[in-house]
């Protein structure tokens, strides 16, 4: 049942073929069976989930159900939840319970979803492999020696392994799309400002955006609809009319102009990734889309600019963790400065410290113009590239990541190698555009490859439609990793 689409689940719930309690029980059982090897969840709330499921069943019985009522889901542990811990996968917040719900959490609660737990991530969403978690790396369900991607690696692994049908994520430089690509699920990051950041623990505020990971575009759409919307508590939340992101799912694809940036098809992409992407583009042409070459000439500057802007904003945002109002406080210290220094040294992991230090440096007196201001000027050039490209096309397509999922440990000692894996994703955050990753096939080692579709501002419905049409014509989104439970049940 957990393999069914959200639409099938909603109709099964409505027809009383299954109850939300049964569905939730099934999710909890799968988590109990699989989490020891996947480490996708950092917290599971069995009692709270079953109570929420019973309440959802009552709503359904009363005829008050919406499309998501009774659906089990998980939140990335970056979203504040009043009912369970919120750790950001950091020692700093290992014992933190938020006094309030994030806007996204409240919206999805209102929609009747059943929160089963919180998913693993890179500490404070800083990382591309999930290895920077205080609780240890989540593992890729396709091959548990591989990383699930990051930073929303736990959410991607949980959806890919069928532990929950959908999960939330956040995307600052690719943190929804890259793990979606590595784990073979669909993940969308909307236009900056569409989803409220209230209660979403901040990493880089001008880039952070909440998103969804699910098995298909059709599953992501209603969840995004429920999450999105104006929230006065986020000063950058956009005042726009409510949108149904599923409205265009069944629109025909004929005439869709897909831009192919020269820079996304050059050196650096693995051959098996290229083969899958080329085949996916052929599928789109067969479905009636046209492709056109476009240019994003400043693409190679996106990584340097991102790794100045994001750490700069992080150094400012993470100054709030000082051991005074919440979070870890060192046991022994001599004075206030010593307490700050030791609490932060003990509470933060290596990558978080590095980004805070880089950010502190680029914002410091004498270096601001050369680094931070220069990065913001490049950001303008990068956004202008996209603006020009969208004069020639409706969506832009390319790989989500240059490789498939790599081995745990392969890059964790070399931050620069890790950063270079973000080559196709960070520019989208700098520009503030919406983008998604959809499973497009399997690479050489039998690991999933994601196709990235980038939309113009507020083009989410169109992106989801383009992904849905592909998923109507192919079944890559239904490919599943071999399950531990099936392995156990195989013939003796």
């Amino acid at each position, binding site marked *: 049942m957990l393999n069914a689409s959200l639409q099938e689940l909603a109709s099964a719930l409505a027809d009383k073929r299954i109850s939300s309690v049964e569905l939730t029980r099934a999710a909890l059982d799968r988590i109990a069976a699989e989490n020891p090897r996947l480490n996708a969840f950092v917290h599971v709330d069995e009692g709270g989930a079953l109570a929420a499921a019973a309440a959802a069943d009552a709503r359904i019985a009363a005829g008050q159900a919406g499309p998501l009522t009774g659906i089990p889901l998980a939140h990335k542990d970056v979203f504040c939840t009043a009912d369970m811990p919120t750790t950001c996968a950091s020692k700093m917040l290992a014992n933190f319970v938020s006094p309030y719900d994030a806007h996204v959490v409240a919206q999805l609660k209102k929609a009747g979803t059943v929160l089963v737990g919180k998913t693993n991530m890179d500490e404070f969403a800083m990382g591309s492999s999930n290895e920077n978690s205080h609780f240890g790396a989540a593992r890729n369900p396709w091959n548990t020696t591989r990383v699930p991607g990051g930073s929303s690696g736990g959410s991607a692994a949980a959806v890919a392994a069928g532990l929950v049908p959908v999960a939330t994520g956040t995307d600052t430089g690719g943190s929804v799309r890259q793990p979606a690509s590595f784990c073979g699920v669909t993940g969308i990051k909307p236009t900056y400002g569409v989803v409220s950041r209230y209660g979403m623990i901040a990493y880089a505020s001008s880039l952070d955006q909440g998103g969804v990971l699910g098995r298909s575009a059709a599953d992501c759409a209603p969840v995004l609809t429920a999450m999105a919307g104006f929230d006065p508590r986020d*000063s950058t939340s956009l005042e726009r009319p409510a949108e149904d992101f599923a409205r265009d799912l069944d629109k025909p694809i004929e005439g869709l102009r897909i831009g192919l940036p020269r820079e996304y098809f050059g050196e650096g992409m693995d051959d098996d990734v290229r083969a899958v992407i080329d085949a996916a583009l052929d599928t789109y042409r067969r479905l009636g889309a046209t492709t056109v070459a476009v240019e994003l000439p400043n693409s190679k500057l996106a990584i340097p600019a991102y790794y100045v802007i994001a750490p700069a904003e992080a150094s400012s945002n993470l100054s709030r963790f000082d051991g005074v109002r919440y979070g870890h*406080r060192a046991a022994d210290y001599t004075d206030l400065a010593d*307490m700050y220094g030791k609490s932060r040294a003990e509470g933060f992991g290596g990558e978080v410290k590095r980004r805070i230090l880089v950010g502190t440096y680029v914002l410091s007196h004498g270096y601001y113009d050369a680094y931070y201001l220069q990065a913001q000027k*490049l*950001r303008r050039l990068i956004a202008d590239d996209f603006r020009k490209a969208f004069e020639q096309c409706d969506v832009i397509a390319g790989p989500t990541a240059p490789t498939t999922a790599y081995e745990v440990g392969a890059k964790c000692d070399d931050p620069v190698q890790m950063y270079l894996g973000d080559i196709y994703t960070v520019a989208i955050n700098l520009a503030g555009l919406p983008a998604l990753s959809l499973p497009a096939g399997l690479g050489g080692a039998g690991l999933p490859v994601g196709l990235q579709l980038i939309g113009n501002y507020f083009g989410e419905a169109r992106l989801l439609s383009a992904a849905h049409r592909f998923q109507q014509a192919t079944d890559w989104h239904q490919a599943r990793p071999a399950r531990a439970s099936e392995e156990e049940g195989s013939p003796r």
Partner: protein
Amino acid sequence: MSLELDQVKHIARLARIELGPGEAEDVLAKLNGIFDLVEQMQAVDTSGVEPMSHPQELYQRLRDDVVTEPDRRDAFQRVAPATEAGLYLVPRVIE
């Protein structure tokens, strides 16, 4: 550009992160790798380009100057490492 060990120690002091014995050297090596990458930015002439601080060119919203939030001091202080009588406790700063 290449950072020196003293600079790393200075930045760490500014960031209020204590570096343990030997840690500064490892941090220095990794930061220099990162700055080598970042240095590519300097090759681009950006004179006349307006810096972009934000994806949407927004003005800050104004709202009426009225109370919107209830007093939740107890709930917020429950997660603090040390409080007393509604105050956050820190080591003595003024003798």
